[in-house]
């Protein structure tokens, strides 16, 4: 990919103020997204993936309990700083989002065609009839059979996979430069998951949009990503192109995640149970000192990993890693 990145996120931090104290949900996160690229954001539940995407869309609750700092430049415009009316025009236009829960993400009392047409009309200069035509075309594009007849169906008439297609049609209605897909396949059956991933890939090739794909499923990552950002405890811990990351993970956390994926070719030959990373993601109110991952890390050195916090450093021109020992471990 050439030219400036379409999305450039710099030092994004999100804090929630709760009765139990300040909760840093995302800390100092920076990443870039090139045009047409797919960046997978990976991590366990609670690693800050979804909060990151909601912060970029400015969909976090607008009250004093939430503090978002940093910059998110979409083609040079800072999504976190522009006034709300301008942001509203970008939302669903230049940057759009598909959510995890297709079952509850559509308005139950409005026909699906009208919901897609609404998105079209909001951002494009089309009259009602033309917007409806366009909605039918989009529903057909995302593979809804007999799309024209289904326009007047309500969400409850459709299966989860079909609803997610409607959500995708809505998100694509204005040719966004960036699509944020927040675990779009997690709630779906495995066969439907594959169909939706294929659809997203096909649509991406067609429109050239860049995709931020949030998931905890490494199988899905291997399927769709160009580059991977691994998050842990609200921080980026490793960032690398897909192949090098999968073949030679630098951060012990990434390595642990990869080891805990069940593999067909090892079935029956593996001795013992599937390796899992021991312990749980840290409570963001009580982050461990030093490296946030050290309590769960098989390679942690007492007195070193629990004392100094590692910084995200460049491992080569395309990779970044946050680990005090990555050089020793890689050797």
């Amino acid at each position, binding site marked *: 990919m050439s030219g400036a990145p379409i999305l450039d996120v710099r030092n994004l931090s999100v804090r929630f103020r709760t009765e139990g104290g300040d909760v840093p949900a995302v800390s100092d996160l920076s990443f870039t997204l090139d045009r047409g690229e797919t960046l997978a954001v990976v991590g366990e539940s609670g690693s800050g993936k979804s909060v990151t995407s909601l912060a970029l869309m400015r*969909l976090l609750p607008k009250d004093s309990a939430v503090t978002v700092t940093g910059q998110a430049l979409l083609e040079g415009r800072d999504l976190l700083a522009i006034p709300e009316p301008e942001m*509203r*025009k970008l939302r669903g236009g230049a940057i*759009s989002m598909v*959510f995890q*829960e297709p079952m509850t*993400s559509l*308005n139950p009392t409005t026909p699906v065609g009208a919901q897609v047409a*609404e998105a079209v009309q909001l951002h494009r200069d089309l009259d009602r009839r033309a917007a409806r035509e366009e909605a039918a075309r989009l529903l057909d594009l995302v593979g809804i059979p007999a799309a024209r007849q289904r326009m007047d169906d*309500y969400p409850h008439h459709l299966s989860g996979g079909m609803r997610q297609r409607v959500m995708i049609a809505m998100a694509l209605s204005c040719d966004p430069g960036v699509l944020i897909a927040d675990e779009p396949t997690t709630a779906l059956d495995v066969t439907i998951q594959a169909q939706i991933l294929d659809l997203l890939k096909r649509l991406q090739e067609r429109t050239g949009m860049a995709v931020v794909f949030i998931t905890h499923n490494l199988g899905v990552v291997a399927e769709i990503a160009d580059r991977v950002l691994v998050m842990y405890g609200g921080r980026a811990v490793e960032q690398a192109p897909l192949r090098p990351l999968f073949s030679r993970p630098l951060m012990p956390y990434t390595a642990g995640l990869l080891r805990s994926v069940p593999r067909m070719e090892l079935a029956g030959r593996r001795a013992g149970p599937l390796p899992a990373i021991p312990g749980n993601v840290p409570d963001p109110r009580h982050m461990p000192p030093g490296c946030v991952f050290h309590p769960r890390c098989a390679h942690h050195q007492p007195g070193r990993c629990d004392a100094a916090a590692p910084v995200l450093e460049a491992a080569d021109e395309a990779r970044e890693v946050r680990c005090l020992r990555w050089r020793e471990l890689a050797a």
Partner: protein
Amino acid sequence: MSGFLARRLGQSLVLLVLVSMVGFAILHLAPGGPMSQFASGSDMTQEDLDRIAEQLGLNRPLPVQYAEWFWRMLQGDWGRSYRDGEAVLNVIGSHLGATLQLMLTATLLAIIIGVVIGTLGAIRRHSIFDTLATVGAMIALSIPTFWFGLVAIYVFSVWLDWLPSGNRFTPGDGSPLDLLRHLILPAMVLALVETAIWSRFMRSSMLDVVNQDYIRTARAKGVPEARILLRHAFRNAALPMITVLGLQLPTLLGGALVTETVFTWPGMGRLFLDSISYRDYPVVMGILMFSATLVLLGSLLADLLHAVADPRIRLG
């Protein structure tokens, strides 16, 4: 759909018969009765009284009286008032207009104001407006209506002398303006409590809806905030209100006993109260059947409306 209707109507009829039995029994078991009304205060002989009892059928066993009343009611003869011999259906009919006028005004006011207050309260939750609305609703709900009525009469009729203290119109006048002046106080007092109820229902329904995923979806596709509220949230939040409306229908016509009494409003509520104290059995039973029918029709109507408004509901 037609199966649903037939089943619901069948259930309603059974319920109506049960209500009539229980009502009839309680009414007749209550101490006193029309005969003691006739006996007191006039110079009737025992013979006269016996003749009246025979005429009205009050000397027969209760089940027989009930069967007779029930059979006649089915044929459309609801009996005659003991007080003036007027046919019961006519008596009810002549009081219905006053009640409808008062209740429709109060309910419309309450729905409009209550829905607006509830919606605003939900959108600006914990704001000063919301807190005031919540406290106001609690006060309106916890203070008895008759007290509000008396205070309103004291302030607006006695003290300020702006509005009449009761009745539906000034005898000999009855112009629209006169009717309106008489309507304002009782409608205001009634609407106060109902507004409190509607605003609380609407607030909680709206709060439910604004936290739903599809509202976030609407935001994510760039829908302006005002349109999110009006098009996406309001419609979904208003659905449960249909049920509330259905439950309100009987009070709409059954009358507000207390308010009508305080403002000497010649409606169904006062008719019911007067008829009970006079032991006017036919009228009391008539009103009872009338309101029971309304309760059942109201809930049926609410279900039907709900099915029309909510595409997810299929009656069957």
